[in-house]
């Protein structure tokens, strides 16, 4: 009974394995079908033309104001099962840009997925290589954005971008060995499960400091008006992740389980920079010894290694299962996790008074410990075909020091996507909707510019990697979509609750109402001396399936949503601008199949943002109240070539209007209206997309 309700449990505690439940895997019929010998080839073909034309006061007239991506790519998904219970899978991508005639290096042929998978005796399944796995939101989880009634024209684009990174369903992408064991037994304990993972999540690698990999940008943390560089790829030593998870189902309606995780930096693997004596002597002789500064191969002057251990316990009960009422939803889930950092070692680079290079080594530095608590309650009733209503309530209490990169690493790391050659990927042309909905697999700059050379790279905001401690502590997210819980339910330094009321009538009228109230557990972490911030979110949306409501033959769906999120705290004396952040996100969507194979898709998104901004100008930290309005409109016509093939033509407009009102400086100077700013830009978007799946 509890397995039937598995899909309703927001924690999805009972799910393990690669995007299918263990029940599926153990099902004899499914296994027989999947166990056929030989090669299966599937995949997809995408062909796209996408153009973005930039204009506005924020655009630079002397740099490119247009960007076009046009390509054909073929993803070939090959599965080979030589035997009933073991096989190999590879996904190859062939990518061809239409505009590269003689640049043969640009014709990409690459392997995107490689794994060996199997299932022994229908009890033990394993994956070696690439795999996807999730446990619980505080242990192993990939937090994703939750947009209420996102228009399909935008959600399908986002899904495609996430699929490119193998994201979805909160599964965490890892590489290593994954084991899942499950066995049904006849006793009060109806099923036992055990999972284990051994994975390497970082590989010691030297990457060019001014290459694109080392110069990814994220939010403006230091308030200088520019997005800050965050290196998500370099690592000075290997990092390993090992975990074990055990669960038991009692009477099929109660689940209890525990998880142990360890993230370990391989200190013995750390490679400091080593210079030949000839070079060292030669450079010192010229007085340019600063060139030799740096400790690690990646140029860092300090390197910190640590071990992190997480112990968690979870439990849940399906009350409706005990009552035997399939229309009723009555469930409770709880999870508690504690994290403990230990064996913290640090290497520091410095020079003494004679310019001699020295390395300081500190071991057994204090680590930080934290806890997290997550309680969920779900109650509802569904009368089949008539109505359904459900209330989900979450309570969380995560300490400021709770750290678990495997549950906290966000899957959305906002990036500049289109027209990056106009602002050199800086913040001047940043738009949430551009980061959310656009992506370029292979972008080759047309001109040498700071931050990247004439070599191709990918532009996407979706991230399937695991952050380091430093990256987690420095991440705040895009306030439009990540203000309250930027790292999902495992976000540290949050306590409070959130609720969602969902209802539907006759499967035609749907509504969602959200309310959340949280606050920081510990104050002053972002701004010294500040009080703890409070977060509130309220809003909701409706979706109408008019064809079902009025028995039409042609589907017509309308949706609308409005969600307002605030982060507030009292100002400090030195803060001239209000520290509060207010975001209102509005979305409207339309999907209309007006003929058998023809559809119209439309969508409108608007984000109104009020936030403080600090700009350093001529050495002075000026504070502004920023008001920003972002809009994104898209309209398209889609033709279904077949069940799995479609052709979409769409056009749209993305606009951003920013007004900055000067409120003063850190030194308490008076507002200066002459420093008030206004900038705006718009991107005219045109797209033609062919998608084929086979």
């Amino acid at each position, binding site marked *: 009974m509890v397995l039937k309700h598995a899909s309703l449990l927001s924690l999805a505690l009972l799910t393990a394995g690669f995007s299918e439940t263990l029940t599926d895997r153990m099902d004899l019929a499914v296994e027989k079908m999947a166990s056929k010998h030989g090669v299966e080839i599937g995949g997809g073909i995408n062909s796209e033309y996408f153009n973005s034309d930039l204009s506005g006061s924020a655009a630079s007239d002397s740099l490119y104001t247009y960007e076009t991506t046009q390509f054909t790519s073929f993803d070939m998904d090959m599965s080979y099962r030589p035997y009933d219970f073991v096989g190999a899978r590879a996904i190859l991508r062939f990518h061809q840009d239409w505009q590269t005639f003689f640049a043969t290096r640009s014709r990409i042929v690459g392997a995107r997925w*490689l794994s060996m998978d199997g299932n022994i005796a229908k009890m033990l399944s394993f994956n070696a290589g690439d795999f996807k796995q999730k446990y619980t939101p505080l242990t192993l989880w990939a937090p994703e954005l939750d947009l209420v009634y996102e228009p399909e024209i935008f959600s399908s684009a986002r899904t495609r971008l996430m699929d490119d990174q193998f994201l979805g369903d909160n599964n965490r992408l890892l590489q290593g060995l994954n084991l899942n064991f499950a066995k049904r037994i006849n006793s009060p304990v109806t099923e036992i499960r055990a999972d284990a993972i051994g994975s390497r999540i970082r590989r010691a690698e030297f990457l060019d400091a001014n290459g694109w990999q080392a110069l990814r940008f994220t939010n403006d943390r230091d308030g200088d008006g520019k997005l800050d560089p965050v290196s998500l790829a370099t690592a000075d030593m290997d990092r390993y992740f090992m975990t074990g998870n055990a669960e038991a189902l009692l009477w099929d309606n109660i689940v209890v389980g525990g998880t142990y995780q360890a993230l370990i930096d391989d200190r013995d693997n750390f*490679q400091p920079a080593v210079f030949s004596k000839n070079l060292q002597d030669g450079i010192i002789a010229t007085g340019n010894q600063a060139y030799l500064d740096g400790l690690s191969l990646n140029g860092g002057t300090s390197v910190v290694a640590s071990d992190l251990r997480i112990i968690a316990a979870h439990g849940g009960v399906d009350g409706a299962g005990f009552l035997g009422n399939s229309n009723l939803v009555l469930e409770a889930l709880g999870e508690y996790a504690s994290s403990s950092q230990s064996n913290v070692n640090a290497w520091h680079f410095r020079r003494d008074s004679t310019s001699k290079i020295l390395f300081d080594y500190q071991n057994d530095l204090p680590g930080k410990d934290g806890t997290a608590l997550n309680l969920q309650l779900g109650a509802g009733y569904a009368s089949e075909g008539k109505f359904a209503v459900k209330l989900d309530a979450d309570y969380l209490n995560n300490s400021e020091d709770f750290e678990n990169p495997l549950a906290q690493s966000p899957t959305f790391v906002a990036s500049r996507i289109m027209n990056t050659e106009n602002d050199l990927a800086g913040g001047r042309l940043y738009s949430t909707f551009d980061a959310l909905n656009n992506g370029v697999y292979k972008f080759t700059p047309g001109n040498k510019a700071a931050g990247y050379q004439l070599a191709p790279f990918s532009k996407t905001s979706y991230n399937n*990697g695991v952050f380091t401690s430093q990256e987690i502590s420095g991440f705040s997210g895009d306030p439009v979509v990540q203000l309250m819980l930027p790292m999902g339910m495992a976000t540290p330094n949050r306590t409070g609750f959130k609720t969602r009321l969902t209802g539907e009538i006759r499967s035609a009228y749907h509504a969602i109402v959200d309310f959340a109230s949280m606050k920081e557990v510990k104050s002053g972490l972002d701004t010294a001396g500040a009080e703890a911030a409070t977060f509130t979110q309220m809003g909701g949306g409706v979706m109408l399936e008019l064809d079902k409501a009025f028995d039409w033959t042609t589907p017509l769906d309308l949706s609308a949503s409005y969600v307002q999120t605030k982060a507030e705290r009292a100002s400090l004396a030195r803060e001239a601008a209000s520290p509060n952040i207010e975001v209102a996100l509005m979305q409207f969507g339309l999907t209309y199949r007006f003929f058998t194979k023809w559809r119209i898709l439309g969508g409108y998104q608007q984000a109104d943002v009020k936030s403080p901004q600090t700009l350093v100008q001529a050495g002075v930290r000026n504070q502004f109240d920023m008001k920003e309005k972002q809009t994104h409109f898209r309209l398209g016509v889609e033709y279904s070539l077949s069940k799995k093939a479609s052709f979409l033509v769409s056009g749209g407009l993305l606009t951003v209007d920013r007004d900055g009102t000067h409120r003063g400086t850190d030194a308490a100077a008076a507002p200066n209206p002459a420093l008030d700013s206004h900038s705006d830009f718009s991107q005219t978007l045109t797209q033609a997309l062919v998608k084929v799946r086979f």
Partner: protein
Amino acid sequence: MTASVRPSIVRTSLTALALLGSAWAESGVTARDPKETIQRLEQEQTGVSLTGKAISNYERAALSGDSVRMGQPTVENAAFTQAEVDLVARPSAHTQGRLLFRVHQDWSNYYEEGPNPLTARWFDFNGDLLDGHLHYAVGDYRAKHSPLTLNAPAPELIYEPEIFAQTRQTAMEEFFLGENRLPLQGLNVAYGRDSLPGNLGVESDVAVARLRTVTGSTSWLHWTDDVEKLALTSSWKLQVLKAVRFGFAQSYIYDDVAASRSKNNARALASEKLMPMPLYEDDNVNAFSLDLDGARILSGPFSVSLETEYAMSNYRSSQDTLVDTVDFVLQDKEVANLDGTALRSVLKAGYGKSGAGPFSIGLQVGYLKNEKNFVSDLAQSPTFLGRRILNSRTEVGGPSGGYNTLDALYNHRYTVDPITSLSNSEQAYVDAKYYNGTNDWYRAPFLKNSYNFYTTTKSERDALAATGALDPHVQLIFPFGAATPNRTGVTLDLNAGALSGAVEVSAVYAGVKEVEAEQIDSLTAVPADYTRMGGGLKVNIDKLAALAKPLVVSGSYLQDGRKRAAFTSRGVAVDAEDFKTAMINADVHAGIWKGLSLMAGYQSIQSNPRIDSLGARTVHPGDLRQDQWALGLECQITHGAFVTAQYGRMDFDEAVTGTKFSQDITSLTLLIAY
């Protein structure tokens, strides 16, 4: 007998060759075994087939010891999944195209990293004509003619422990090595007919290959060579009454001067700022052979045969010289012109069939005389050039700088990494903060492997010998194989078996000396004497005791030595040399339960290499011990699918300089062959 069947690309291909007759475009006679029916059926099957193997591996090598430089990484990890896909397209019963490509994924992914490249490792198109008697291959192929003309020499070990032999085989397979066949690229045509009228048989094999080409690049990342080098080899045999075979083989290697100059930047060469003038080296070898087989005369279990080959070589080298500085006219002027000969004769006598019957014995006596100026590039190029593999990034003190023969023999690493200024750098050290225009998006395979299939030239082999690049522990007597120049003497191999191969014994001996004195550091030395003696024993206990599971133990001892008397040259006195290296092997592998097998191996090399502490002229014999042991547990999940866990340790201990370091190696492997 192995506890379980380990699949491999090379072994699979050779098996397929036996069945298909054209899988790897092998040179030689078409198959004549009883499986012709199967072969014909498989040949007639058209379409596309996919086979190959997938591997997931985690390996950790931890370096420790007093000689390890502090502050450097002491651990090197390898963690990856790799798939080799062997795609065969057969448009007709008599033609096929084969593509072997590799997909490699190191754990973990970087977050916006570029595409993981596919590597095409083998590509050929081959087929049969004339009712299967003529076989051709275009593209990649492997060829072997004779030990003096076309051959790929490799280290030979007696009763090598299975646990190590598997890893060496894997390392060699990276370069498609095995059975002394040399991988080449070009055109290969083979014809064979053994039942012509008059009890005659003919075999011929012609191979045309391009060995090197010029890219014109000065960056090491894109370097191939500075000469356009072509090879034409052939082998012709006439068999009479199935008892006598007359043979002729030749190999011509030709450097195309005009093509080389057109690709190299003549003006840049003329200015001699970017690189030295290329050295053109042509090598022609003609060999005659006579083989006698006593099978027609002797009956029963006795066998005797004689193989004799006589080869003559001409080596000519020349170098471009600038004769006109105004018009930049280049002329290649002769540097050397050498003629040499080589003679090889092997008498084989035996009783019984190896592995069958109560008793069998085989004796092989060989005589060779290879002159110092005998040059045969396609037979003398060594496939093993030892280098540091594991923990190679870490500096280690001592005379070998961290080099360990056993590490070089058995380990290799393959990774796919971003092309960065470090990997793209031309500096040996991590000096590179030079930016070479990369953007971290491109990734390329990087390989650490002591094996190779490159055809070397005489000047390169001379440099290898002079700079100590050859490992005397496994390459002392015949570093360039049977065609090693400046060797004359006798070799002896004795193999005996009893109880249907349950017990095997072998013994080897070699008494060889240099024909002429060598030049050592510009001094004229005296000829050296080389000796080899050793033997081994292998017992299949499962056969003796009628056990259900395999249980095999083996051991061997092999000692090589080089003696050179003291000499004086150009007023410099050099002490006598008495170098010895002895290798011990011990092996146990046993089936335990169902698919579970245990493997254990031990190897030890004891030697007294020269320690050049006071300069090259003074010889201080060292006291070096290199050994390794390993334990492995292998579980065969099903046919062709294995999980292997292994732990081992390598030790290096040189007593005179006090150099000591160890490497602990742990590995876990999942392999699926399909």
